[in-house]
């Protein structure tokens, strides 16, 4: 992660350069979106929260003094937004599940809609499999602290030290949370993992 380049971008944005903001969004959008997706498990919510994260970054960038790495600050905002969303602080929007049947024959709404951005969602095959669904369910069932530590590690490969800055806890806690999260996931997914092993 090139922190010097982040610093340059942040300084340019502070002096009013909108192009640099676009560059910063492009650089982090996938990581932020994936972390949120791991936390909230719903694409519509993840879209909404990810947009709000970057709006907040833009609005409050003047408060970022550069004492820590930019991405630490960004991920902290991301995590807080996810927690707020989970706690129901966000406005509730009526939503219809894509798997919900909309007629007598049980046709799901999702099957009638064209798939979105197929080029950017190449892994939809796995996402829509039973295994993908089970994995998402298993991650979602983790306690909040374990979930955010696990998601942050797997999505962005942050070191334990970096994660301790983002999560505001000692490295030892990061280590034990990851261990516990993986043990729980291993247990919940054991039928699938055993079958993978056999192949």
């Amino acid at each position, binding site marked *: 992660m090139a922190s010097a380049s982040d610093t340059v971008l942040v300084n340019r944005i502070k002096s009013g350069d909108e192009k640099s903001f676009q560059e910063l969004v492009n650089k982090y959008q*996938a990581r932020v979106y994936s972390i949120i997706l791991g936390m909230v498990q719903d694409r519509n919510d993840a879209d909404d929260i*990810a947009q709000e994260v970057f709006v907040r970054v833009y609005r409050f960038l003047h408060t970022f003094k550069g004492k820590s790495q930019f991405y630490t600050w960004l991920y902290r905002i991301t995590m807080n937004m996810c927690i707020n969303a989970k706690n129901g602080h966000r406005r509730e929007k009526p939503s219809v599940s894509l798997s919900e049947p909309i007629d007598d024959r049980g046709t799901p709404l999702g099957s009638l809609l064209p798939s979105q951005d197929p080029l*950017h969602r190449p892994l939809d095959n796995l996402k829509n499999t039973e295994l993908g669904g089970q994995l998402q369910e298993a991650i979602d069932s983790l306690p909040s602290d374990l979930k955010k530590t*696990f998601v942050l590690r797997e999505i962005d490969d942050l070191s334990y030290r970096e994660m301790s800055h983002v999560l505001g806890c000692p490295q030892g806690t990061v280590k034990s949370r990851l261990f516990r999260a993986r043990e729980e996931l291993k247990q919940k997914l054991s039928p699938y993992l055993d079958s993978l092993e056999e192949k």
Partner: protein
Amino acid sequence: MRCKQARRYLSEYLDQELPSRLCRRIENHLEVCADCAREYLKLKAIRTLTRNVLIEDPGPHFYSQVSSRLRENRATRPAQRRRLLGAWSLIPMPAKALVTAGLVCLLFFVLVYPHLVTPTLSIEDFQQEYVRSRDVLPWGEQPSATIISFHSGRG
């Protein structure tokens, strides 16, 4: 290295967070212990699957969505506040300093000053208190009659 000890370190080994010496010991153990190697492969599989399922790009239109949300955000800010701030920025610096100093003085006299001054008893209240105390207090503790005449300007 025993299996129990090795399994405690597998998560950190996967994350490459172990010192190199311990790493080599784990590697040696995994080469000879099929059960632990299987456990390690499960952890690796969870990582691969998680990345496959979760890592996703919100698409090429994401920035334009953020940008339009920012514009909305700006538009909904109270226009009056912006006008006031605009007017304030037009005022020359000495005038700003004068207005600020005036406001500080005003706040001081309204909020702080009344608490600094000790309350005084008006002469009428004092007279009433004096008359009341004459009936209640014994003779030795009664206030002198000269006090009342001095304060009322009749002395």
